[in-house]
């Protein structure tokens, strides 16, 4: 793969984030469907999902480092990172505003927490997708 270590890292982070999000919501949606609204129950599932994400991230980066010599990010990597982050940051803002609106309307905490979490995850996923697009385009 003709990709820098930073680009491979973006792929690894994207895959780990998508896998984690998919597994978490696979469980969380079923819990919500069964009427579970206690945030502590979701926190346990979330903890397991984050641990899984850390394992995938570490394993992925170890493999990437074995396959290719790890390099420090250079100016192009940093520029791509900043542009991707800037383009994806509005998703968190939408999530926060939606959560605040939900609080004003006295929506249950479990929904507020999930709106915030989804916006955070989606923002990260969008950031990695933008990064990968910029890497493929050259800048």
């Amino acid at each position, binding site marked *: 793969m*003709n*990709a*820098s*270590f*930073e*680009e491979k890292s973006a792929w690894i982070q994207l895959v780990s984030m998508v896998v984690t999000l998919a597994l978490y919501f696979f469980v969380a949606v079923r819990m919500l469907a069964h009427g579970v609204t206690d945030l502590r129950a979701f926190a346990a599932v979330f903890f397991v999902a984050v641990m899984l994400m850390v394992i995938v991230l570490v394993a992925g980066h170890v493999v990437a480092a074995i396959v290719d010599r790890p*390099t420090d990010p*250079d*100016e*192009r*990597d940093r520029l791509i990172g900043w542009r991707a982050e800037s383009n994806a940051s509005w998703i968190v803002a939408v999530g926060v505003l939606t959560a605040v609106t939900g609080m004003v309307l006295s929506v249950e905490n479990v929904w507020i927490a999930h709106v915030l979490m989804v916006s955070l995850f989606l923002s990260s996923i969008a950031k990695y997708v933008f990064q990968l697009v910029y*890497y493929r*385009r*050259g*800048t």
Partner: protein
Amino acid sequence: MARPKTSIRNEIRVLRFHQGEMTQQDLADEIGVTRQTVNAIEGGKYSPSLEVAFRIAQVFNKPLEDVFRYVVKPAAGWR
């Protein structure tokens, strides 16, 4: 009035050839960037910072304007 399109062209490929077919990786190591960044600069997909541009020129022992050229392409409606 439309603004002119600009692009920065470079002679890095030719200069590498004259430098004993220096590889992109060798140049990248000399100027402190990744090989992929050298590839993007060489292909005109990425305009480097002034500092990296000067470092590239220094490696080839050439003035900056012998390595990079600023090309203005008139856009429709631009005079």
